């Protein structure tokens, strides 16, 4: 909301500088998003008339213009296109300095000298309009050579752009902002001048009715006669421009003026166009429609897609039950005020905030009116706003008649809560004892009623503060008001303590550890998109996917079910830039559709949490892409085994997966299994060639890939099993022996190693050191050679001990189908 300082001064005396005022506003929660100084540095600008316009050879974006600013024709080169001969426009002569230290000098363009500049409204900081020159004929009866500030009645002003919070409908008006300032600065408010009705009774010519009594709490209808539609006085125009609205005509301007000043949206109808001068408020019924002011035909009373939206629309109808407008949102395009209007039927009403919010959302219309109504407009404001409207209109039409006894219907209005409050309540929330009398003073300054009781006070909010609730919640609302007006900056600070120590869970510590290890082993951590496209999803999976209903773009419409695609993409971009010699990792969630997940989450949702919802399974993966020139499935194995070792997992074996895991090369892949529990920790291998091809990776690159399941890695049972007491190595020398076995392909080298390792306590270590596939082993078999270190804690192993051990190791291997290889 734009608040011109000059307008604010109608309500309250202000002695502060704009900088001081800004701080006060901020501290009141009326956050100043910008401060604009208008009407300054334009003293040299004068009104000029356009005499001639000529094209310039070889230039289609500028034209040669002759103007008269009171001293004969002046030649200008101008880039604007929105004006014609005869128009009056602002002219900044050579030597003028416009806002922003913009000095006007003689310039030569395409051989033509420009002796000054014709200006847009934005260049003069009069408004944001930069659509072309500021055409003055629509606003005033211009006089050539007159200084613009005098022609428009511009006085230097300061405009505060204030962001009004959702719970402060009252602050969406000049008066509301002034009220807050008054409460903080301890200054009285000056009430605006209000007209009083006179003349014959309204009911003689007009009628009103409310049938939608739940949605429309109040309807005030007035008849104002003897109107002449003409432009508003400049000061009114100036204020509207300052507040960001465009002046249109005295009637429309007065309507907007009142909305901006007091916060009451309203509608002036042309009295003669409204059948029976009758306004009714009723529900729209299915099948009805309205063409709103913006030219869009809207079907009414159609339930929307939005949660809890039953499709209630409220409409304003005339005496023939013809729909004039969508109540509280936008008028129709037939019954508005035109240049021939002489009589206004003026509507000011209160509508239920939620009804307007739903209507506005459903129809996709947000207007100044709906934005205010959906937050809650003061229901006691309608007649006061009407009186102010008439008063403002009298500035241009002093002889108008406002018929006496305006129609004023009341239906269901929000109940005004009564909230019991004690000094202890305030202290309990704010941590400071504020005397109740002081708190009461602050509340009274914003029109809250405060009545003393035995235990404290009963507080009722002003009718402008529909955001204040009842009960405990209302008490919190009132305490916030006290704190706000008292100033948050004056509230104390204290650092709370509690017994429980802070810390990370075991799983969180492990997550950090995993990240560190992966980075230590050379990975740079990436952050790839959670949302991808259907086609990316289909590169690896054709099944059910979790979709976004309202994506920003189709490339971001599906929740990822793997990190692999994103990492390959990220890597491929680095390859393109010549930086592909890189290991990338990411720890992040992937999402599995509840219909294909065994771990779908069940939770409550819908209105009041009354529905059971099935949410996607979220699996946390640590995926590592090895993209260096040397990388392939082998380095992926070495990398992964290193990671496992650093996580304290030594009993991990690699096995061929029963199905090819998503994203992996089908014949260069293995699952990492924790042997004793059988838990699958992840998959190791290379990126599937077809994925590399689809993502434009140069052919022939092998890319190593490790995809770890964090839930499995951090499973409690796993870490418990593997954490064990420390062993002190035997002091006696170890014996080294090698054994080579011919092993069926079905038996994994790791499984055989593990079996040999645990077969007896005397086996210190076993390492695979050679794999040989040759004719000697027969089909489906290969030779695996292991190096053993044997020792004992009791003494040096004798030759016969070693021979015995050797036999037992051979027996263990035989148990798995492995035969000692013939020498």
């Amino acid at each position, binding site marked *: 909301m734009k608040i011109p300082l000059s307008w604010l001064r109608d309500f309250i005396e202000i002695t502060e500088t704009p900088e001081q005022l800004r701080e006060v506003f901020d*501290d009141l*929660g009326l956050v100043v998003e910008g401060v604009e100084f208008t009407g300054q540095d334009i003293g040299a600008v004068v009104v000029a008339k356009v005499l001639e316009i000529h094209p310039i050879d070889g230039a289609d974006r500028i034209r040669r213009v002759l103007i008269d600013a009171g001293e004969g024709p002046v030649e200008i080169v101008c880039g604007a296109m929105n004006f014609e001969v005869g128009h009056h426009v602002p002219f900044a002569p050579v030597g003028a300095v416009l806002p922003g230290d913009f000095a006007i000098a003689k310039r030569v363009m395409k051989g033509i000298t420009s002796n000054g500049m014709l200006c847009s409204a934005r260049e003069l900081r009069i408004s944001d309009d930069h659509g072309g020159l500021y055409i003055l004929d629509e606003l005033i009866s211009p006089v050539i050579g007159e200084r613009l500030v005098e022609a428009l009645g511009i006085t230097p002003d300061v405009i505060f752009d204030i962001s009004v919070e959702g719970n402060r409908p009252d602050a969406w008006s000049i008066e509301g902002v002034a009220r807050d300032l008054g409460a903080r600065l301890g200054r009285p408010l000056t009430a605006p001048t209000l007209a009083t009705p006179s003349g014959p009774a309204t009911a003689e010519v007009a009628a009103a009715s409310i049938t939608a009594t739940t949605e429309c709490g109040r309807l005030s209808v007035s008849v104002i006669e003897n109107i002449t539609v003409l432009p508003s006085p400049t000061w009114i125009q100036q204020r509207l421009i300052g507040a960001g609205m465009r002046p249109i005509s005295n009637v429309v301007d007065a309507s907007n003026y009142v909305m901006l000043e007091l916060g009451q949206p309203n509608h002036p109808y042309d009295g003669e166009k409204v059948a029976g001068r009758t306004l009714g408020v009723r529900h729209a019924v299915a099948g009805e429609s309205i063409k709103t002011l913006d030219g869009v035909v809207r079907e009414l009373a159609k339930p929307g897609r*939005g*949660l*809890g*939206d039953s499709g209630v629309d409220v409409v304003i109808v005339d005496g023939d039950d013809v729909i004039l407008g969508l109540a509280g949102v936008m008028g129709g395009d037939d019954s508005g005020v035109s240049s021939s209007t002489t009589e206004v039927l003026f509507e000011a009403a209160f509508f239920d905030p939620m009804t307007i919010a*739903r209507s506005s*959302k459903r129809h996709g219309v947000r207007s100044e009116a709906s934005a205010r109504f959906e*937050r809650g407009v003061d229901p006691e404001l309608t007649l006061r706003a009407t009186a102010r409207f008439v008063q403002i209109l009298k500035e241009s039409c002093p002889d108008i008649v406002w018929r006496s006894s305006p129609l004023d219907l009341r239906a269901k209005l929000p109940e005004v809560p009564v909230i019991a409050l004690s000094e202890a309540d305030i202290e309990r*929330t*704010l*941590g400071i004892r504020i005397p109740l009398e002081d708190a009461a003073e602050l509340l009274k300054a914003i029109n809250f009623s405060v009545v003393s009781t035995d235990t404290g006070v009963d507080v009722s909010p002003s009718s402008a503060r529909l955001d204040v609730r009842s*009960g*405990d919640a209302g008490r*919190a609302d009132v305490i916030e008001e006290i704190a706000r007006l008292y100033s*948050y900056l004056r509230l104390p*600070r204290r*650092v*709370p303590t*509690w017994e*429980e120590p*802070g810390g*990370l869970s075991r799983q969180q510590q492990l997550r*950090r550890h995993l990240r560190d290890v992966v980075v230590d082993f*050379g*990975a*740079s*951590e990436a952050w*790839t*998109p*959670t*949302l991808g496209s259907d086609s990316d999803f289909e590169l690896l999976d054709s099944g059910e996917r*979790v979709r*976004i209903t309202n994506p920003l773009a189709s490339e971001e419409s599906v929740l990822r079910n793997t990190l692999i695609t994103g990492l390959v993409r990220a890597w491929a971009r680095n390859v393109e*830039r010549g930086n592909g010699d*890189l290991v*990338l*990792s990411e720890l992040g969630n992937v*999402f599995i559709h509840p219909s294909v997940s065994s771990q779908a989450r069940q939770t*409550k*949702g*819908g209105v009041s*949490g009354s529905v059971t*919802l099935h*949410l996607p399974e979220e699996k946390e993966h640590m995926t590592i892409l090895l993209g260096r020139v*040397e990388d392939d499935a*082998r*380095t992926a*194995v*070495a990398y992964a085994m290193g990671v496992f070792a650093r996580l304290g997992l030594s009993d991990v074996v*690699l096995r*061929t997966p029963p199905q090819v895991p998503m994203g992996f090369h*089908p*014949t*260069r892949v293995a699952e990492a299994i924790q042997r004793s529990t059988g838990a699958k920790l992840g998959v*190791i291998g290379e990126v599937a*060639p077809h994925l590399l091809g689809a993502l434009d990776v140069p052919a022939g690159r092998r890319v190593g890939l490790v995809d770890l399941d964090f839930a499995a890695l951090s499973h409690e049972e796993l870490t418990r099993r593997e954490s064990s007491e420390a062993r002190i190595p035997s002091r006696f020398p170890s014996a080294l022996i090698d054994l080579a076995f011919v092993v069926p392909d079905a038996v994994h080298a790791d499984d055989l190693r593990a079996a040999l390792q645990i077969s007896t306590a005397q086996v210190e270590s076993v390492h*695979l*050191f050679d794999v040989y596939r040759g004719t000697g082993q027969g089909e489906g078999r*290969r030779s695996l050679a292991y190096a053993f270190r044997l020792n004992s804690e009791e003494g040096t192993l004798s030759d016969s001990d070693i021979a015995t051990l050797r036999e037992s190791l051979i027996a263990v291997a035989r148990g798995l189908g492995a035969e000692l290889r013939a020498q």
Partner: protein
Amino acid sequence: MSDSSPLANLDAQRDELIRQINEVADFATLRQLEALLVGKRSVLTNLQRTLGQIPETERKDAGALLQGARRHVEERFAARYSELEAIERSAKLESDRLDLGDVVAGAVRVPITVGHPNLVATTQRELEDVFVGMGFSVADGPEVESDWYNFEALNIPPAHPSRGMWDTFYVDLGEPETVVLRTHTSPTQIHLMEAAVRAGDPRVHAVMPGRCFRRDTPDARHLAAFHQIEGLVVDRGITFADLAGVIETFTRAYFGPSISSRLRPAFFPFTEPSAEFEITCTICQGSGCRTCSQTGWIELGGCGMLDPAVLEAVGIDGSEWSGFAFGFGIDRCAQMRHQIADMRALIENDARFLRQFS
């Protein structure tokens, strides 16, 4: 059709062609065969030419039969082609086969590369550590939430205008608008309080970092996915002063002793009283610059006392317990500390960007 018709043994001829196709085991032979099968001199084309000899009354049917046979052969041909392709592909994969169990790990030479932690993850960890030092635990929560957790339990009822404060991505599950990508980490508060109530002790002292989503076109200052850290304290006798104290302690611990905090009134549906918290501008140290619009302060996040409606939604007795919550952007902290002009650099994963952080 009479036996003398040239098409009399069409079926047999067709089957013979298909047999030949099925026998082919390589592309070159298949392409040769193609000419013989369906080319200008092929059996089928020859038969086509004989149609003229057939009485006109039967010609149409005969033509249809011939077309059917031709289609059959062509389909089989195409199918065989893909079969051979698949065979070739799998032969290639087969020749590529590597039994990873047989990799002799000790023989693999792994190059040494220097890795770099992600800036966002590092920032998150630093923030967590500050709060852990102040006695907070850390909690995680899911990224897909129901509307109840993301909104209604936080005092943002369906269709309430304040839902418009969050540009929400809705997930296509359940009734419309019931499943969302969480727009803030606040739903994790609700999970924590529910769990605490279930455990019979409503006290919570936790921070909740995590990824959130808003339907907002990315620009230099915003990303559609971003990271937040949320704090929640529920205990006896907790006041706004405790909130202000925690914010101030955190600010000094994380940003340094020359940076302080201040609160100013704001609106959030789930807290009352609510506040925005601002910190001394880290660029100009409070003297006023472009970044802080000459005010010396920059907005960091939101906070406030838990709204009674939220306590009620999770079943905590507001007469005995009170609490506060706060939240702010992790990415934004990173951006401030490293003066990152364009947030989109965070998701580009350019090695040259990633390398800068350690």
